[in-house]
């Protein structure tokens, strides 16, 4: 099973930001998205996750295969770690949350409310949710923000086990995760040439 995109065009708000985006990630592989801020990494990931429909182009997979993790942790301050994981497990239909707890070593924090956790712990909790989704393609937006080196290692290990288990990952990040055969993709090359090319209001005849 291969996750590929053919000349995808994605928009952010009224403007088309990326055009002719083409890539392929097969199972067991990871793809690192590189590019300066504002170049459209988040826009592309939201497009893959199905949140923003593509302006044009095609995807070989459906949003239901994608587990999306954004900048924001998506955690509720008043829920405990166990309650958060149990909630997402029920939503995604997986029964046991032990795998997620162990992957990010959260057993010790189970009864702690999210508001009492440090930024790094919160990040580990939100990444632990990915394991509960049971979805093959992980689309992650700057996952290692506010993680210390040991947590980054934990995260890289979790990604490796996911890949070994036949999963795939597309990660937008600036730091080296130490994933051996991860391909990289520079988003800058897909910047839409006229950034509002598809805007009918820019028709020359119209003035």
């Amino acid at each position, binding site marked *: 099973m291969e996750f590929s995109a053919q000349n995808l065009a994605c928009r952010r708000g009224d403007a088309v930001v990326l055009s002719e985006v083409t890539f392929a990630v097969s199972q067991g592989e990871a793809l690192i998205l590189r590019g300066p801020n504002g170049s459209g990494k988040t826009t592309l990931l939201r497009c893959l996750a199905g949140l923003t429909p593509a302006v044009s182009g095609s995807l070989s997979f459906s949003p239901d295969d994608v587990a*999306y*993790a*954004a900048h924001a942790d*998506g*955690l*509720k301050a008043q829920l405990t770690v166990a*309650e958060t994981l149990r*909630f*997402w497990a029920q939503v*995604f239909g997986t029964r046991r949350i032990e795998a997620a707890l162990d992957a990010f070593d959260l057993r010790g924090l189970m009864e702690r409310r999210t508001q009492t956790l440090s930024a790094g712990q919160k990040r580990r909790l939100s990444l632990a949710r990915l394991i509960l989704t049971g979805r093959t393609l992980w689309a992650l937006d700057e996952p290692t923000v506010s993680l210390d080196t040991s947590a980054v290692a934990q995260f890289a290990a979790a990604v490796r086990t996911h890949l070994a288990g036949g999963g795939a990952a597309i990660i937008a990040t600036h730091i080296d995760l130490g994933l051996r055969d991860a391909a990289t993709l520079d988003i800058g090359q897909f910047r839409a040439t006229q950034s509002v090319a598809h805007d009918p209001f820019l028709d020359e005849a119209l003035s």
Partner: protein
Amino acid sequence: MIALLRRDLALAIRAGGGFGLGLAFFLILCILVPFGVGPDSGTLAKIAPGILWVGALLACLLSLDRIFQLDFEDGTLDLLATAPLPLEAVATTKALAHWITTGLPLTLAAAPLGQLLNLPAAAMPALVLGLALGTPALSVIGTFGAALTVGLKRGGLLISLLVLPLYMPTLLFGADAARRGAEGLETTTPLLLMTGISAASLALLPFATAAALRMNLR
């Protein structure tokens, strides 16, 4: 769906003041009106059903912008949108959670609090039944308004303006039924019409709410 409902109710109780917000507002209203209008029980009795209905409406309006805004700000809404749960189900569950924390307590409290307004006993059944059948519509319509304005900075005020005209049919029929009840007239027709509106809203509005959510997350 149940997981989301349980989570929302748990959150409402732990953080959002849960059942208290709607009730507190209702209590304040039932106390203030006699102070403002005067203790003469004749006038109070006449306006009691209407005041209770307007109170229920405003209590609902108060708590609408919290339905999606909190989940939008901390990113949960994005995750819910990519979850296997269809957004229509999320919309219905959110409306149900809002009704349980606002509409239901108001319906139960209407009769006892009505005594502060000399609510005539004859109006009691029509009022409580009307509220029971009408407040779900208020929650479903309110959730639609919340979905339209999620992500906007000053969304709270805008929601009231958008949702107010949508509340009109329910308010008109509900208050009319309560007033007819007070005068001992037949109340089945307005109640039935209002129930029809509630049923239709419950069935159709979640689709519009989900569409609005998708448009806002785009």
